[in-house]
Each structure stands twice: as structure tokens, then as C-alpha cells.
């Protein structure tokens, strides 16, 4: 079962078989590499999960901020705001677990080399807090080897 949600963002929701880590549905989107669509893309995901996930607050805040950061990184740094490129979003979710994958076409980066934004010498910088926030707002963060795809997991009992 698959149905279009927003034509502009090419979002699709599909039921997936119960079993694997309790996921029940999968939402996929091909997001244009434009900063202006980030908020709408985040809202589409959050709206679908709010009614389904056990903890509404986690969706309202942690998920929104973390997904917004991942999309920003993918659109700005990964795809360099190239309108011909899309950011691929795949969100698998059940009542207790959400797994969000955000992938771009960039060359990737080394997450371990991102400086700590809370060090005194970095505190007054305008940027460099995105990945730091993601790490604090979700329960698990993984990258693929190339560093152009991030996977963020939220779990609640």
C-alpha cells in the first residue's frame, strides 16, 4: 500500500510488515535541495508520527529539531543547494521506535572531526552546533562509511 502525500515533496507512506524492531510503516520523501522546504518536510514527518508514536513530546521537539538539522546539513553541505539534487529521507516507525535516514549526494564528511561547539574558543561561533544537537536529542546516531547518510534513532518505552 502506498499513497502520495504532497506532490511537491514526493512523500509516500507505506505499511510494512510487523516484525523487524516493531516498525509498522515507512515514510519516504525526495526533498529538493532548497532551504525553504525544510520546515514543510519536517512538518510532514512530524504530523504522521505524532498520532502514532507513544510519546508526542519526543516527536514535537526532539524529532523536529534533529530532522531539521540533518536536512540542513544534507541540503547546504551535502548537496550544496543544487536544485537538481534531492535529499532522500526514509523514516521507519512503530509505536516505540523511530528510525530516520537522511542521505545526500555529497562526498560525505568525518563526523568525528567536527569540533566541540561548547569549548570556550568555539562558543561565539555562528555555526557548528547542528551535529552536536542531533547527538543530544536522539538516542542513537549512525553514519554510513562515506559520511553522506545519517541514521537517527529515537526510542521510548
Amino acid at each position, binding site marked *: 500500500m502506498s499513497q502520495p502525500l504532497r506532490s511537491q515533496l514526493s512523500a509516500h507512506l507505506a505499511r510494512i510488515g510487523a516484525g523487524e524492531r516493531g516498525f509498522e510503516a515507512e515514510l519516504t520523501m525526495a526533498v529538493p535541495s532548497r532551504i525553504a522546504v525544510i520546515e514543510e518536510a519536517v512538518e510532514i514527518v512530524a504530523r504522521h508520527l505524532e498520532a502514532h508514536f507513544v510519546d508526542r513530546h519526543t516527536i514535537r521537539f526532539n524529532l*523536529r*529539531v534533529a530532522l531539521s538539522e540533518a536536512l540542513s546539513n544534507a541540503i547546504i553541505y551535502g548537496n550544496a543547494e543544487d536544485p537538481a539534487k534531492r535529499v532522500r529521507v526514509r523514516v521507519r516507525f512503530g509505536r516505540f521506535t523511530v528510525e530516520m535516514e537522511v542521505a545526500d549526494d555529497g562526498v560525505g564528511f568525518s563526523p568525528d572531526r567536527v569540533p566541540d561547539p561548547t569549548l570556550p574558543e568555539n*562558543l561565539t561561533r555562528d555555526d*557548528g552546533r547542528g551535529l552536536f544537537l542531533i547527538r543530544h536529542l536522539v538516542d542513537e546516531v549512525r553514519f554510513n562509511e562515506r559520511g553522506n547518510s545519517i541514521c537517527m534513532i529515537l526510542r521510548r518505552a
Partner: protein
Amino acid sequence: MTFNARKDANGVLVIEVDGQLIVGNRQELKQKVLDALEAGERKFLVDFTKTGYIDSSGLGVLVSLSKKIRDEGGDLRLAGLNEDLRTLFELTKLDTLFAISDSAQDALSAF
């Protein structure tokens, strides 16, 4: 999402963030404050009472504005952060950089 600005009786420019402060609209807030700074305003209060969430770009623009306002001898204060938003400032240690009040009223009386 909008930024509503009003001037209070003591000359503080109060800007309400209605919605999100994120990468998609941070430039709008920045320009609004820089224009006001250019026009001679020196006291600024950003009120987050009606704000949903802030991302790292939103935090970054506040850091940048705070530096520019201070360079001009002005004062930037923040107010109305709910528990989640306050957590963002605490995690990033930006709570040590900004003057944060519970309510807009508290912030106004601190200028």
C-alpha cells in the same frame, strides 16, 4: 512564522518569534535587527513565548546578533523560553552567553 516587532515605553525593541527560528527564516530576523541597529535602536528583546523550535542556525544568528549589538554598545536579552528551548541553550552552553529572563516582563525591567 513571523517576527513581530514593537517598541515598548522604555525604548526596547521587542521582537516576538511566532513559529520557528530556523535556517529558512533566520536571515529575516537578522536583517530586521540589523536594520533597527542601523536606525539607532540599542535595546533588543527577543521573546520566544510563541516559538515552537529553534535549530542550530537560529542559535547561530542570535550569537551573531549579540556580538553586533554589543559592538554598537547595545544590549540583547532573551525571554519566554519554554523548558525544551532552554535545554537547547544549556546543552550548547549558550545560556552563559545570553541574558535570559523567564518572561518578557522580567527582561524589560532588567534593561
